[in-house]
């Protein structure tokens, strides 16, 4: 599509936009979504034409042709497309959440200077009734050190 033809397509959309009723914002939104739709269509056709493998059986085979066919099928089955997209969204969301937790808990170093020198101190008390253990606080450590 050369620039003069692209200009005439924009002119068509401009004419339709002016014919439309409704708010200016909605009409402008319609204009841009339609223009982008046409642009994607043109790019898709160009990819399909460029990527087509010219086999003797069919001239429309190829990655681009397959892509266009897939998009067309998805558009024809909106229920399936919505379900598939929701499942994808859930899967990606769950994966991201799990990775965020793993990164925060296991992979990222603690936000202290020389975190590898941090230790847990426990104290234990062995009696005839059994044993008890507890984490030592800073005050306990200071008392033991005296």
């Amino acid at each position, binding site marked *: *599509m050369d620039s003069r033809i692209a200009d005439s397509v924009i002119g068509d959309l401009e004419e339709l936009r002016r014919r439309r009723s409704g708010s200016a914002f909605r009409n402008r939104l319609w204009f841009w979504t339609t223009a982008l739709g046409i642009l994607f269509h043109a790019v898709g*056709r160009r990819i399909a034409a460029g990527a087509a493998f010219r086999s003797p059986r069919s001239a429309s085979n190829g990655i681009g042709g397959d892509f266009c066919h897939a998009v067309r099928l998805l558009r024809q089955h909106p229920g399936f497309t919505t379900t598939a997209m929701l499942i994808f969204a859930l899967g990606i969301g769950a994966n991201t959440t799990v990775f965020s937790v793993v990164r925060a808990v296991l992979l990222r170093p603690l936000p202290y200077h020389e975190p590898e020198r941090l230790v847990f101190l426990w104290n234990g008390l062995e009696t005839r009734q059994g044993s008890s253990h507890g984490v030592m606080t800073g005050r306990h450590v200071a008392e033991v050190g005296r």
Partner: protein
Amino acid sequence: MVLLAVLQTRDHAYGVSIHEELERHTVRGVARGAVYMTLDRLEKKGLLTSMLSEPTAERGGRATRCVPQWTAGLPTR
């Protein structure tokens, strides 16, 4: 179908009128991009000729790509 729509729109065939004609005769929506790309392909194959009119104010100062009906379906080269 695009060629038939061009023939149906008679004296004023251009992107908008061809798209409207196609939507009127089909039971489902037609992508505008498909119409423009088909017109482009048909012109490259020499099955129709298009010409640009003078720019008008209602089109934001842009020209119209008109498809004269008499060229549709006839080899132009």
